[in-house]
């Protein structure tokens, strides 16, 4: 079955109020083209799941797209805190369900396997358990030891960015660190939307089946988006855009400047080519691929 869609069609699969599991680390591998399209389609009241969220979480908070975050951390690491997200949380507009890394893994692992919950020994003694209805203490029925039960989480849709895919939705990544986004997010989610640097003939995938990380039968949409993770890094293809991050952390302190920034980089560029031109065109891209 042909799964290729336009980015508008793919993001059209997401409805207001749903939960989106977003591939992301502080400055890495975020499907930013999909994030921009969520903002352009003015989605509202989405929940967002990340292990560690970066600039994407900041943008989605600033644009009023999300009202809850489920994950372990939000930060742009060397570039500092995500100040629009921070402001939204401090102002009560975004609610945070903070989970330890093993707890998020347990919630999604239970979701993937259609189990009611999975336990972890993490978090005992922390304040994370009391504030969260999706976590509770449980006696191990075999030994009586205390563990933390983590309720199943089934996101409505997972957003993934990959190096290549074929039209049937088979997805490959180059040898690189595999974050949980590939390990568990797509398996736990009801739908999977993938952007890929390139869409290739299936014969290309057959040369290195060991690099295929998602089978087409479990993928709902593929969209070709070169440099689709910019300004985050997508090794080995390109590194994170330092100048762009520095520009963002400056404007993110000010609401008006933030909206002007989103206007320039999110609302105005109608295509990926327009977006790449706006962020500095060939010159900038060449710097990032060096």
């Amino acid at each position, binding site marked *: 079955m042909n799964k290729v869609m336009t980015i508008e069609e793919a993001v059209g699969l997401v409805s207001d109020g749903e939960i989106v599991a977003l591939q992301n680390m502080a400055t*890495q591998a975020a499907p930013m083209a999909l994030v921009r399209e969520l903002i352009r389609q003015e989605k509202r009241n989405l929940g967002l799941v990340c292990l*560690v969220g970066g600039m994407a979480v900041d943008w989605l908070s600033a644009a009023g797209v999300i009202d809850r975050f489920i994950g372990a951390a939000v930060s742009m*690491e060397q570039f500092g805190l995500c100040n629009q997200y921070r402001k939204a949380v*401090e102002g009560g507009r975004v609610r945070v369900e903070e989970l330890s890394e093993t707890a998020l893994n347990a919630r999604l692992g239970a979701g993937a396997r259609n189990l009611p919950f999975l336990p972890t020994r993490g978090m005992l003694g922390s304040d994370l358990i009391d504030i969260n209805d999706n976590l509770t203490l449980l006696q191990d029925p075999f030994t009586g030891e205390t563990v933390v039960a983590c309720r199943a989480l089934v996101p409505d849709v997972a957003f993934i960015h990959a190096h290549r895919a074929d039209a049937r939705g088979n997805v490959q990544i180059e040898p690189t*660190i*595999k974050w949980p986004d590939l390990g568990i997010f797509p398996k736990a989610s009801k739908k999977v939307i993938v952007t890929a640097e390139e869409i290739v003939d299936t014969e290309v995938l057959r040369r290195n089946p060991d690099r295929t990380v998602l089978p087409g039968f479990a993928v709902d949409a593929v969209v070709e988006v070169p440099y689709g993770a910019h300004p985050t890094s997508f090794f080995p293809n390109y590194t994170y855009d330092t100048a762009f991050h520095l520009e963002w952390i400056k404007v993110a302190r000010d609401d008006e400047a933030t909206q002007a920034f989103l206007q320039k980089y999110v609302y105005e560029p109608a295509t990926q080519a327009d977006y790449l031109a706006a962020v500095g065109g060939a010159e900038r891209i060449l710097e990032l691929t060096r």
Partner: protein
Amino acid sequence: MADYGEYTIDELMCATLAAQFKDGDEVCNGMASFIPVAAIMLALRTHAPELVWLAGAAGVDPRPDRVPASTLESPLWRDSVMYLEQYGDFWNYAQSGRHLHTFCVGAAQLDQYGNANNSVIGDDYHRPKVRLPGTAGLADMGALGKNLLYWNTNHNPRSLVEKVDFVSCPGYLGGGDERDKLGLTGGPKLVVTNLAVLDFAPDSKRMRLRSVHPGVTVEQVQEATGFELLVPSSVEETPKPTAEQVRLLRDVIDPDGMCKREAGVK
């Protein structure tokens, strides 16, 4: 010739942390962890060549040419022998009880019983004064029997507090045997700051001054701490980094000065 007898505070902190890693230990690093990464790289080049390092909790035995601008990006895990899949593999090993017994923690607040907070400042979790990054792996590392080594480049009463606003990383909780009663093993072992080295008293589990850095007085450390420290009758001076350690850190491991940036050294 360069003078390696002079050292900066980040170099002393790296050398102090490095001494905690024994040959054959298994360690990993998380986000924004420049001083721990440099300490690991220093230990590997000096007393602990068999130290096992999981860069970014994923790249096994990497060979980065220097401390890069991020401790959670690809240049750090360059030339690894294996990429562990972050959840599938890393946490299986970290949760096993058999591996990765030591973890370095940095956080916005640390209290007198070694509990750490990187979640929220303020008393209303849902309407915080400051939303911090979040627990990340800290709540797991604090509960899974690891030996926790804290580093803090800004020893002041705001970051070293009597009681954390939120426990993101369980230490000795309310002190005494509270941690044991929950069945938790391991726990906070050492705190390395820009002023001093501290540990925890065996019975009360209260933070205790162990050594002050050269040029720092006990009074200065107490003044910079938001609670009363236990001060033994004799407090030693933290050993200075050796000239060879300074040379390695400055010229080989961190020529771009990422640790200096983290420690605010000009």
